[in-house]
């Protein structure tokens, strides 16, 4: 009985959020509260058990990354990088577009998708505004790219972390098997983006371009000391994220690295800590808290276990069937549901099938990342992109996002399952 009601609460909350008529954060928190009431009324669990099951280390990780990115952004570091990077494009819109996507592709490997969008979103908007071009095609393509580009890196996305941790995926194996795939996907997607947004990516006026190109990137640095601190922090983060998870015998958790760097930066910034904390996007963080709370309720009522048993029965011991299943089903699920809870739900199941083929957990990682952009609500990075556009009062409609991303996502899933099946012949 409790399970059915919780599923109903979950579905209603999701529909309400997807309708975009209500505040996302408030709805998710309310959903968590209602789930708490249901569990209380049916005597399944106390509220504190629900709260304990929320993935707090992920929440702290995301919060720390928000803090770091806020400090780095206010130092002018990203503006500096962006100007340095886009200088060679000479203001040609299409070249700019491709070089920005390339930049996103690379930093996606080191930062989770949310951080990537946090870095790239404001920067892209500023650049586009300076050149007087529509930033929306840029944001949509960046959101899509940052999702699929992170598949090969264990810290590239929060779902990767969750799955790798639960299903014991080797970071090196993940990198070797999926990096070629992500490059293929990039090469395929860029021409498609250029075609779809052809009429939006018009060249900007000469004088705007020349004005912008005259700016010395050095002028973008607002505070020298903050700038250098941010660079050091970024280097530590990249090193930590690259080497940390591979450490023997116990890997360092990215959350620990992130919180150490964030709090050290805050100490140095002592006078405006309150200001920095105010700028963190609490709406998104509490949206995640509410979401995790709802998934915890599903877990408590046994819905997730039931799902695992069902899938186990479907796959049996067949590798081909397993790969196809582990790509298409999680991808479709991540399209509708946030990909973090999907990963949390499916990771134990992937572990169960790692004996059948080590490719199955890898397939799951691939699927949840690509599935994240089939619909805009699938990944927090997309939601961030939408939120940035909204803040600039030029909102991206969900259906505009879906028009581009949905076909592309389906195409990528098809390519990916082909790639994994091919690998399956050799491994």
């Amino acid at each position, binding site marked *: 009985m409790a399970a059915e009601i919780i599923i109903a609460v979950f579905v209603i909350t999701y529909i309400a959020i997807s309708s975009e008529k209500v505040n996302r954060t408030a709805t998710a928190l309310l959903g968590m509260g209602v789930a708490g009431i249901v569990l209380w009324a049916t005597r399944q669990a106390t509220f504190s058990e629900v709260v304990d099951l929320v993935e707090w280390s992920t929440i702290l990780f995301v919060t720390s990354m928000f803090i770091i990115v806020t400090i780095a952004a206010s130092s002018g570091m990203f503006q500096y990088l962006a100007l340095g990077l886009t200088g060679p494009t000479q203001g040609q819109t299409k070249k700019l577009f491709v070089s920005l996507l390339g930049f996103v592709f690379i930093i996606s490997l080191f930062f989770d998708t949310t951080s990537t969008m946090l870095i790239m979103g404001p920067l892209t908007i500023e650049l586009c505004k300076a050149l007087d071009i529509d930033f929306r095609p840029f944001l949509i393509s960046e959101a899509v790219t940052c999702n699929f580009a992170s598949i090969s890196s264990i810290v590239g996305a929060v779902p990767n972390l969750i799955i790798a941790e639960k299903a014991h995926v080797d970071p090196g194996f993940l990198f070797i098997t999926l990096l070629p795939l992500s490059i293929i996907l990039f090469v395929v997607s860029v021409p498609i983006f250029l075609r779809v947004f052809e009429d939006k990516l018009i060249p900007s006026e000469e004088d705007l371009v020349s004005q912008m190109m005259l700016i010395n990137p050095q002028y973008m640095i607002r505070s020298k000391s903050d700038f250098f601190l941010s660079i050091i922090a970024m280097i530590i983060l990249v090193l930590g994220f690259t080497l940390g998870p591979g450490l023997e015998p116990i890997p360092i958790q990215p959350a620990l690295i992130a919180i150490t760097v964030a709090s050290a930066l805050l100490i140095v910034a002592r006078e405006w800590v309150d200001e920095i*904390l105010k700028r963190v996007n609490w709406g998104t963080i509490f949206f995640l808290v509410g979401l995790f709370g709802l998934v915890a309720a599903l877990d408590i009522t046994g819905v997730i276990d039931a799902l695992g048993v069902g899938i186990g029965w479907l796959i049996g011991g067949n590798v081909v069937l397993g790969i196809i299943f582990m790509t298409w089903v999680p991808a479709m699920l991540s399209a509708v549901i946030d990909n973090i809870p999907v990963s949390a739900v499916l990771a134990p199941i992937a572990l169960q099938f790692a004996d059948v083929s080590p490719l199955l957990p890898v397939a799951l990682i691939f699927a949840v990342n690509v599935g994240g952009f089939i619909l805009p609500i699938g990944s927090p990075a997309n939601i961030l992109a939408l939120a940035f556009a909204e803040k600039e009062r030029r909102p991206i409609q969900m259906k505009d996002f879906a028009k581009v991303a949905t076909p592309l996502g389906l195409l990528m899933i098809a390519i990916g399952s082909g790639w994994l099946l091919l690998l399956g012949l050799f491994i």
Partner: protein
Amino acid sequence: MKKIGWEIIATLFITIMTAVALILVIVYQNVPVAVLVIFIGTYILISTEKVNRTAMSLLGVALVGVILYIALSLTIPGGVRFVTLIEHIEWHTIIFIIAMSIIVSVAAASGIFQYIALRIAARSEGDHKQLFIIFLVFVSGISLFFDTVSTMLIAAPLTIEICKALEIDFKPFLVSEAIVCNFSSIPSIVGAVPNLVIAQHQDIQLDAGFLFITFMPLSIILFLVSLPIFLRWYGKSFGVSEEYRADAVFSIDPSTMIKDRWDFNISAVAIICLVVGFAFGPSLDLTPPMVALLIAGFVLLLAHERANEFLNRVGWPTVFFLVGLFGLVGALDITGLIDALGVVISGFIEEGSIFATVFLIWIPAILSAFLDNLPVSIVLAPIAATFGNPLALIFAVNIGGYIFTPLGSPANMVAIGLSEEQHDPIPFIEFVKIGTLLGVIHLAIGSGYLVLLQILFGI
């Protein structure tokens, strides 16, 4: 980044502290002492008030995480993964604080508190003594439903406004309100964050109704005892405002204070639900955090596009200060230091004895006088659980909040901070004098009361 001096000193201090802790772990393989070094070092740095306390407590928990991680990878007993450390943080309490801040910030924006204050203050008709008593009763009433910081955030700005309009010195009002809001919270599980932390501790699970019944009489006694003392202390500064001033203030129609009808009605309903939920929920196992989260979710939902604005107004620095603090205490717990402290204490007190009760009142009270009462509660709650007297601890940390120094409770700091904003600061020593006088009297009365309960009912 402006004044370089302190950053460098703090960084040096942190580096030395980390180095000592690392040596302790790697060379001596002593994890508990290493954790203790970080804990004490963090605390010292926070008390200097030269570094940001939020940043420092988060850094403290990060360093402890690193220590425990190193211990784990060197297979020294006591090491745990960072996730485990995070799981030791009392997220339940954190959620409660966040939910309450959301509700208070929405309600404050609607003008509901101004409305209520103007309503009740009008009864005084400009007599300062009357007004003083009315405000104190108001504060002790809302203390039962809001934690001390929220109480002061609600009451202090109103007090200042009305006092300024009537040309009265607001400092006596603020000092007395801060003291009253501290001791009036003892009967209520949601009245102060330490109460919630102690009552919800897994080994205590104190019943909210029981707490209310045992402590309500005590809190009324304390109020009745304190009132004459306050009036004597501040009596000479009270008079009667000129009639035209009083008329000018009290002829304002309270309903003009309402900034937005819709918000006002929502806030009123939310507060009523909150009060009902807190009053009846606990006996049905509906925990306060769940009630608060539900109502906060509703209020945010109705605020719609302003929801993110309200979220931004939550006191995030305080919230993350607590996250860090809970993490540090969690580490003390993981490494067995809290158990060890319990063993030491049990060496010289006997479980359930009268001496144990008195001990558990005076020691935590004196500790909370110098340290913030929240960490004191977090550390001592497991120990109080062992000796079966959480009531004494709840009483002690609340009273300890204003004895000797105002540093003990954040509510006092709110009062002082607001008076500074008005360029009419409450002198520290002023607070110390009246706070210590009343605190000692309250502790004496409370010890008598609790010992009496123990003898009569064996509680």
